[in-house]
């Protein structure tokens, strides 16, 4: 009965086959042909997936090759970190680079200023009422049509209680209510699952804002107390605005980006 590392043991005792290396080499050489045969034969979804994988592999391979090549090529030593001190007449080149950096910094700042009044998604697709609302027929003979059901995800405050059915014009179904959103901090480049506090503005219409409909581009207020942000005066910030960046009705979740200017 073979036990423990019996394969290694056998190889240690009796060695490998005499043509082992040769076979390995040949197998490796055959591999590309095999892969090619498979690639030529596959069709449909499998082919799509395979091609995607191959493409990624090829890109990676090219990158590594390039990296190797770059290492091999002898480049003229850059002046960025010279071994010896530079003569004074050459220092201004360095300065020029700095100037460039400066100008880009200025540009950046300008952009920032503009950003104060802009949001990541300045424009959104309009959503008609009959897309967002479904007419619910009421009445004994189902002949009345004044009641609407919101078919988009909504945020409903905690203290909300439904009106009596006779007076309730808009129904927001439980299945489409969201309490939390995945918010990305643009500077930290990290996302957090934060509780929604309120819907600040839905660009589609004030009615949607009132109803708390969450569509792409909606500005929501989120509870950022988890992140431990502070104002310049040192107070802890707990509410911050964020914009919804995805279509929650398609994705089943609310993603957004934190608006740093607010």
């Amino acid at each position: 009965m073979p036990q423990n590392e019996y394969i290694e043991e056998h190889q240690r005792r009796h060695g490998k086959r005499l043509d082992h290396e040769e076979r390995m080499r040949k197998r490796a050489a055959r591999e590309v042909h095999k892969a090619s045969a498979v690639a030529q034969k596959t069709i449909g979804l499998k082919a799509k997936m395979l091609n995607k994988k191959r493409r990624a592999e090829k890109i990676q391979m090219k990158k590594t090759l390039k990296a190797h090549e770059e290492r091999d090529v002898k480049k003229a030593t850059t002046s960025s970190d010279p071994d010896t001190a530079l003569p004074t007449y050459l220092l201004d080149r360095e300065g020029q680079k700095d100037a460039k950096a400066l100008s880009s910094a200025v540009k950046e700042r300008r952009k920032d200023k503009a950003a104060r009044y802009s949001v990541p998604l300045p424009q959104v697709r309009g959503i008609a009422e009959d897309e967002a609302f479904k007419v619910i027929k009421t009445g004994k003979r189902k002949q009345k049509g004044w009641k609407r059901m919101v078919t988009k995800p909504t945020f409903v405050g905690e203290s909300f209680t439904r009106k009596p059915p006779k007076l309730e014009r808009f129904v927001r179904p439980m299945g489409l209510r969201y309490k939390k959103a995945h918010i990305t901090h643009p500077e930290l480049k990290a996302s957090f699952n934060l509780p929604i506090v309120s819907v600040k503005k839905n660009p589609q219409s004030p009615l949607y804002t009132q109803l708390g409909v969450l569509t792409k581009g909606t500005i929501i207020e989120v509870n950022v107390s988890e992140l431990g942000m502070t104002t310049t005066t040192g107070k802890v910030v707990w509410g911050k605005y964020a914009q919804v960046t995805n279509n929650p009705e398609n994705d089943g979740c609310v993603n957004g980006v934190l608006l740093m200017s607010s």
Partner: protein
Amino acid sequence: MSGIKASIAPVPTANDFLDIVLSKTQRKTPTVVHPGWKITRIRSFYSRKVMFTKDTFNEKLDAILSDFPIMDNLHPFISSLLNVLYDKNHYKLALGQLNTARHLIEQVAKDYVRLIKFGDSLYRCKQLKRAAMGRMATIMRRQKDPLAYLEQVRQHMSRLPSIDPSTRTLLICGYPNVGKSSFINKVTRADVDVQPYAFTTKSLFVGHMDYKYLRWQVIDTPGILDHPLEEMNTIEMQSITALAHLRSAVLYFMDLSEQCGYTIEAQVQLFNSIKPLFANKPTILAINKIDVMRLDQLDPERAALVRSIVEESEGKVKMVELSTYTEEGVMDVRNLACDTLLASRIETKMKGTKINSVLNRVHVAQPKARDDVERKPFVPEAIASGERKKFDLNDPERRRTEKDEQEENGGAGVFNIDLKRNYMLENDEWKYDVIPEIHEGKNIADFVDPDILEKLEALEREEEKLEAEGFYGDSDDEGSMLDEEEEAIRSAAAAIRSRQERAKALSQDKNKNKHLSQVPRKFQNRTLSQMAERMTAIGVDPSSVMARAELLAKAKGLSGKRKRGGDEDDEEQMDEVDSEEAWEDEAEESMDVDEDEDAGSSRRKARKSNEGSRAIVSSGVTTRLRSSTTALTNKSGGRISARAGPARVPARDRSSMGLRNSEQRDKSIRLHELSIRDRNREAKAGESDRKIKEKKPKWLFAGKRGKGTASHR
């Protein structure tokens, strides 16, 4: 307390896992959906996909979770061995992670199925399904590390030696290099590597051997160094685990030659430090390599040190010497170890409470003597006295056997001994009689009857007796005695029989001809003369019926007709009568609405038109007619029906039109028959045969409308 499963199914990597699950969804759920479908159908299409994916994930993860053993449920030895090898915490964590992944996936599926219920278009439902699968995939991709770890564990586990913790076990332990592996190689077939450096053996090895008709398990362990338990590495810990958890005989190996690289003092020290593990186990101190150094050759101080082990243990430890190199004492060590283990196992069993339940049931029966007669075993006289000679091949006086004869005549294959010679039959002459096994296609063994001769004799005697009594005597005298009466009876009987035959044949024919088309009775051609014949045949006098029929015919005004056809014979006349009658009938029927007075003239007209061609006329008596003249039925109640014919007669017979005379007509018929003869002979389709020009006309089977279940096409 279950063991490890013999073979755990391979654990795929996270990526493979995804491929397997998602392609299964693709294969096993419907793939065609149309935006035009009812929204509920679209929703269920997509939620089915989500649920199916979840189920597949669930099934696969469950399989992994149930395949891998739960450490706490295993035998303590296996459990702690796995702990040493794979780290219990890590193992539990990996399985736990998979379990949570399973729950998360279930949650995701639940959420998204709920959301799909609100999907209002195909696009939305599809996006939701996509999102659901994406989230499941993300969860699964995060399980990359646990899956990889479990796969490694699986591979290692499958190579673990199968150690049975409860059987009789010898456990070999000691410092590295003292000759433990050499010993197990000597006593079992385990092929453990032996090398002159420490830690050649890195894990437990098991071998099996037989002793006293029992199966023994020998376990070789890696060497142990003398340091605290916390400092021991995985290799040493395996030995410690085995020592701690297996109920076995322990063989502690020592090397007095110090070739192993450890001093005798160190070895004694190790024994003392791991002594707690030997408690309640038969322990043997095996001193190896005596070909190099014996205990006697050792200087007295150190020998005393070694002996002190035995002395301190108060007889629990036994010392033996061996050399695996010269094989001196190897078997002694084995036997001693096995015997002590067996003794101790029995002892512990006796101590336990279980033994009583067995002992209570054991009963050895001792028969009581019923009288004073002594019943000794029987030994034949010749043997008891020793008279009988023993068989000796070279003894000239010994009995000749068939084998001797065979050898003399050329040996086996050349000469065959005479099997028939020793047949035991009544008569020796019969021995060589040839008896075929099969005679005339019959197995004669089936017909062998030992009493056949007696039976034959009895039969013959009876025959003789019957002959003597004149039983067979005057049979031929009576042949001429048949008188007329008997003749008549016989002929009648023959007639009856033949009639029965015919009836039988008829009824059988009826069955046979079921599928053939039959001429309806109405159209069958029957004449009055036929009827008369039949009636005479069954013995009824038809004369009155015939007279009546003629009378009726006359009454119908057929007398003129009779005059016309005066030279024709009676039967033909009758035919004519019938035909006329039928014709009349037909005419009458067709003119039912008209008044009766017209009937006669119309009848005549019809008759005129029919002249020249022989009228084929339908049955003479219709229901209407019969209702008026009941006399038309005969005695037996049957209808007097005459020849049958088509109900409708064409006004003009076109077959004879354009033909000058009957000769020409005959000729035309003959020519026609000639022209179709060849074709008929080959059974070819003619012009008049039904023909479907195109079986599948394009307009009926092509187009957008599918197979065409619509009835209006």
